[in-house]
């Protein structure tokens, strides 16, 4: 497994195509993410944003092909979902699923130990782990009660998204793809989640924020903004692109020439 230097690509995707149940959803996505960068992917519903996230993480049921799809120099497409996780990929789900009877902390420890096993490292012990997780929850300003509950069982939308951020903090991925982490949140929850993301930014960590609305980007500044339309990235730019979208709507991008660069 190769390490990336600062100017090497963390995520390199070229010509990514994906179809599900015979329907072509991704029609050739190109994306390059360097360590420490925050990218935003916006676009109308149904354009394939969530599919992109799912396909990068290795969700089953899709037919996927690409010219290039590499994370930290390693080919992604042949890897199982857990192997991609061990490489340092984290997917924040749009609708985090419930795991009845499975304790939150227990799941996290199982995940951390699974990665350690894969890397030939010793497993972390239960007590140490609990201290670590509590500390992270405190740092993020999240209620420690989350830790003793079952994964997403009876969680409100806001609690589920906070739980995703907590997991991110504990698992320390290199690349965090967050699929509509802001959807369904009220203003306070949004601020908390955004603060969490900002805390977790570092030179070794990149984010891809998939979002429909600009709200999140008011709190988390993105280095690059992309617009996805009809299964492709139709436009890329900086935060200025967000203002233009605000003014002119997504149809403007769809109607314009394919590569509308800054």
């Amino acid at each position: 497994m190769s390490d990336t230097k600062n100017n090497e690509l963390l995520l390199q995707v070229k010509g990514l195509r994906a179809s599900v149940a015979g329907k072509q959803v991704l029609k050739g996505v190109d994306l390059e993410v360097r360590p420490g960068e925050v990218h935003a992917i916006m676009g109308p519903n149904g354009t394939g944003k969530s599919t992109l996230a799912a396909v990068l993480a290795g969700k089953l049921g899709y037919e996927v092909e690409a010219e290039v799809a590499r994370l930290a120099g390693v080919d992604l497409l042949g890897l199982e979902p857990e192997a991609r996780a061990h490489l340092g990929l984290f997917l924040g789900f749009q609708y985090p699923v419930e795991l009845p009877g499975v304790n939150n902390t227990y799941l996290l420890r199982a995940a951390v130990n699974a990665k350690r096993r894969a890397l030939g490292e010793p497993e972390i012990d239960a007590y140490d782990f609990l201290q670590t997780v509590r500390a992270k929850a405190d740092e993020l300003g999240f209620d420690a009660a989350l830790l003793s509950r079952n994964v997403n069982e009876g969680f409100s939308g806001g609690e589920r998204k906070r739980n995703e951020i907590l997991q991110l903090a504990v698992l320390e991925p290199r690349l965090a793809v967050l699929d509509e982490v802001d959807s369904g949140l009220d203003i306070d929850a949004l601020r908390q989640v955004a603060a969490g993301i900002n805390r977790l930014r570092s030179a070794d960590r990149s984010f891809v924020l998939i979002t429909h609305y600009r709200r999140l980007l008011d709190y988390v500044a993105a280095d690059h903004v992309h617009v996805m339309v009809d299964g492709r990235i139709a436009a890329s730019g900086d935060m200025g692109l967000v203002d233009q979208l605000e003014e002119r709507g997504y149809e403007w991008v769809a109607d314009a020439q394919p590569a509308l660069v800054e």
Partner: protein
Amino acid sequence: MTAELHPADQELTLAAPPDALDRTLDRVYEAGFVTDIESDVIPPGLDEDVVRLISRRKREPEFMLEWRLAAYRAWTQMKEPQWGNVRHPPIDYQAISYFSQPKSSGDAPKSLADVDPKLLETYEKLGIPLHERAALAGVAVDAVFDSVSVATTFRKQLADVGVIFCSMSEALQHHPDLVRKYLGTVVPVSDNFFAALNSAVFSDGSFVYVPKGVKCPMELSSYFRINTANTGQFERTLIIAEEGASVSYLEGCTAPKRDENQLHAAVVELVALDDATIKYSTVQNWYPGDANGVGGIYNFVTKRGHARGRRSRITWTQVETGAAITWKYPSCMLIGEGSVGEFYSVAVSNHHQQADTGTKMIHIGRNTRSTVISKGISAGHGRSTYRGRVKAQATAQGARNYTQCDSLLIGSECEAYTFPSIESSHPSAHFEHEASTSRVSDDQMFYCRQRGLTAEDTLNLVVNGFCKSVFQQLPMEFAVEAQNLLNVSLEGAIG
């Protein structure tokens, strides 16, 4: 003439009044049967003579023989039940030997080195403590010294508070009146086909009596009766908790229970008087037979509790896997006012196993309550059926029940059936039943794998979460073993 006690009796005999035993033996000696019986070789088959022989061999009081004979006669008039949702070849009741000799120590393994390594591997996975493995593998008694000394301390503690815990055979020798008072009052001899058979030919089992106001100081385990040669086939257990008494009883263990006898038809009766509680926990891992399920155990059990006293409570907990066929419905009759019945169960049917299990909660007295949580897991070609009955009779004012029964399907070849019956004859009965059947969803699987867990780890995690509410009800001693058992019994279930 010295009495030759069965090794099992030796383990558990409390300081019994010597004259009672002597009198019994004298009677037998008078009849002159002793020598004859010892040398008999009894062919398979069942008739009145075999029943008499069993009773004589055990030197039982007269009333027991009459009881057994009545049961036998009732059995001959009955037909095997056909309504279970299980498929099996017909059982030839005349091909079974109802009278089994103890294994000669010549056949037993001399040490762990002689034991099948696969079996030892299983003990390892299940987390069975080292000093117990030899006993479980059937290594001859004198090589396993630990258990005997543990048993001695144990017996003293019980004797100090007046708790009687011994084999059924012993109880018939030393406490015949107690046995006679309660035996068959919860499961009458003619209750069902297998109960009738059991009543006629049962070989041994446990007897527990907890006197008024006594909280039994430790969990009682039938497992202490190690090396009781082949008495497992037709076990009869009776547990009595008098006013204010409480006891927790553990049956079985997670080590795969091997037995040449295919048919197991046990009967368990529980009686709880005012303010008494009885908790009966079973963790059983039956030998599943070969890959096609041939040679596996048929486990047909009648378990019933009478919550006779006011505010009495009876709790059944079970984690079962492995039997080729399981047919059991631990039940509670809620008779006393304010009495409570509980049933917590995890049943796993993998490979070609079939489990038809559930519970009956019959609400008779006023303000009675019952809780049922049943988790069925089907994998491979397994078939799991929940059959429950919650009934409020016309006298059951204020009856309350909550039932949750869920089935988890692993793989596309297995089956899950849920057949509850909710019956109310009293307007104030409030019963709530909910059930679901599904598999580990794709979303759950992807979520965990994205967090770094393998598919197999995910399955174990989700299955354990699925069973959590039942595991929480198990006595500590069983809870950890039960989790390991679950993981082991589902190995290879992800195809």
